[in-house]
């Protein structure tokens, strides 16, 4: 349980001239639940997208399980190789999008079972059974035949969560999984994550719910302006941060 399953070293990512990730390095142990906090626009979403290889890092080293993706600044990496690795990584890592991206032409149930059937080659029955279970877990029993346009914001968010979990990824990345939820549901969804944590899944959560970061996660990453300012246990980050910037930020929520 203490092997490093996810590792980044000096990861950089630019969009045009805008440096969005600057020399990001981290190590995440198998089975840990990590929270990423930080101001809007500091690069949290981009980091998740890079880990899931939806964006290819400009330079640096990224390891997911045994798969290593490495690029130099003036690197002459082969596209084909990158592509292949990206695909392998994505198969291990699930990502809940901030913008959800449900498939509008499929019902809730079909949204959830599509990938298990086509990618994991599960039988339809098995996939449906699991999907219904997941829907119940996130409080959406009975909505399986609705289309996405018939869902409220919070319902959509929960469907998206169920869709990601249905793939049983080794590592799950969540981008603000509770943003559209009311406090009651937030509790429920966080409970799902805590359960998964107990089952040993590695999870990385971008969140604004400081209470959750503080109480549920093993470690917390604080980002500012494309950099990881501090990476440590919640107690450390929230109560005794090393960096004055971290301190300034977390103080906002104590008041």
């Amino acid at each position, binding site marked *: 349980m203490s092997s490093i399953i996810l590792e980044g070293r000096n990861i950089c990512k630019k969009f045009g001239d805008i440096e969005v990730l600057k020399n990001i390095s981290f190590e995440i142990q198998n089975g840990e639940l990590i929270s990423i906090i930080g101001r809007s626009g500091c690069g949290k979403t981009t980091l998740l997208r890079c880990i899931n290889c*939806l964006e290819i890092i400009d330079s640096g080293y990224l390891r997911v399980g045994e798969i290593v993706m490495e690029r130099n600044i003036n690197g002459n990496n082969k596209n084909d190789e990158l592509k292949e690795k990206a695909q392998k990584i994505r198969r291990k890592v699930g990502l809940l999008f901030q913008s959800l991206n*449900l*498939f509008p032409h499929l019902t809730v149930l079909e949204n959830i079972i599509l*990938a298990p059937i086509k990618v994991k080659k599960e039988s339809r029955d098995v996939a449906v059974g699991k999907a219904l279970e997941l829907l119940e877990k996130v409080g959406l029993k009975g909505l399986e035949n609705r289309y996405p346009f018939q869902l409220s914001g919070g319902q959509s968010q929960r469907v998206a969560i169920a869709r*990601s979990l249905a*793939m049983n990824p080794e590592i799950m990345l969540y981008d603000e999984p509770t943003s559209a939820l009311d406090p009651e549901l937030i509790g429920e969804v966080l409970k799902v994550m805590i359960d998964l944590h107990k089952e040993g899944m590695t999870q990385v959560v971008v969140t604004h719910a400081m209470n959750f970061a503080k109480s549920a996660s093993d470690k917390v990453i604080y980002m500012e302006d494309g950099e990881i300012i501090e990476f440590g246990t919640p107690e450390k980050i929230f109560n005794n941060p090393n960096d004055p910037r971290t301190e300034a930020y977390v103080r906002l929520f104590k008041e």
Partner: protein
Amino acid sequence: MKIKFIFLVAFILLPQFFLISGEQKVLRWAADAESNAPYIFQDPKIPSNIIGFEVDIVYAISEILNMQTLFVQNQWDGLIPGLYRGDYDIAINGLEITEDRKKEVSFTKPYYITHEQLVVLKGVENINSLSDVVGKKVGALKNSLAERILRAKGGIEVLTYEGEVNAFVDMKNGRLDAVLVDAPIAIYYTAVNPEYVMVGQPIGEISYGIALRKEDTLLLNKLNYALETLQKSGKLREILEEWNLWNFMMETYLDDFSPSNVPPKKYQYFIESVSKKSELIERIDLYIKFMPVFFKAALITLGLSLVAMLVAIVAGLLIALARIYGGKVLSFLAVLYIEIIRGTPLLIQLYIIFYALPSVGVKLSPFLAAVLGLGLNYAAYEAEVYRSGFFAIPRGQMEAAISLGMTKFQAIWYVILPQAIRIVIPPVTNDFISLLKDSSLVSVITMIELTKVYNQIASTYYDYLGTGIITAVLYLLLGLPFIRIARYFEHRLAVERKSTQDYLGKVV
């Protein structure tokens, strides 16, 4: 306008008749019953009867020779070749006796001699002779004596037509100053279309004779004997007078200058019968007869188009995928294919497939060549349509799919394509309808489809408007089911109602 007819039934039943006939007692005579009044035409009041001054002459001859007659319908162009095919024994249908034709067939002595006649629009004052049309535009039938005369005159802009009706209509539309045609045509056409008038003196001389095989000298003698008898008895003159065709040339020819005494009752009958109303009925009658031909051609067009569209849709998808999803080489090839195929005329592609491929050993049937030509051509267009559809799908969809572990191909197939289909339905429907109509091009590779049949019938019957409308309606009908199906799918696929579509239609 004149009335034109077709004896399809006679034409189809033809072979049977030969088996029965063959006796010497039967005079098998051929003509094209779509020739206009006064030659040989359908009785405006009793469409199943064919009448005309040449019909009267044939009957008069057969009476003298004591033979039965059997009418054989044949295309005018084919009248002389048909003689040698043995389908019939004589042909009579305004056939001018020329040296050229005499090389191929024997002609009886002339049964009618006439001239070319200038026709202008009523009210035109300055045209009264051939000299008056020098420097002007004059219409004539293709390869007619009229054309030869006009060209020989020089300085006249000669426009030739397949049918006289076109020439007359073009004159009405102001594109011609005069028309030069055989006098009988002019007499009958101006009689029922008073906006045209005949002007000037007779021009040139034409003799019509009955054509028969060179070897049938016995029959030739018989016919000439019968004609002479008709001339002497005054019967020929009577027929011509009934049809209002007796003229000074016939007077000279028959040396008979006595005053006219027979009223032109058949001419009168024709003029009276050709009222707008009966014309319409005739026409509808005619169109009903065309229907089987049209339907068959429409089915060919539809079948061809459906198969070709299938080819286009499948090949287009592959090309679009190659362009977007393939590597550099594939994608380059796809772009190349699209640009070259879209960039060059379908006609030339069809020519190459049908006429040039055999030289490298690939000899396709017309249908296969047509399907491949149309299908592969439209595939280039469909590929671009798909591309537009794919790119209309928000990027998040693709990301969501591949972050669930799908391959790019799976993502396209299960996520992008089903959403894109709905977007591309209108342009694909557009293209199917275009293809339906472009299928008319395959007539260049000997396929007989709807437009070809239209051209055949319209130019044969000089009826561009009526048959044109029928053809247009048929194309419309062929396209409609597909449009309906497309609309049905468009709505069915509109489950993701978060599109502008339904919103735009709403109360708000």
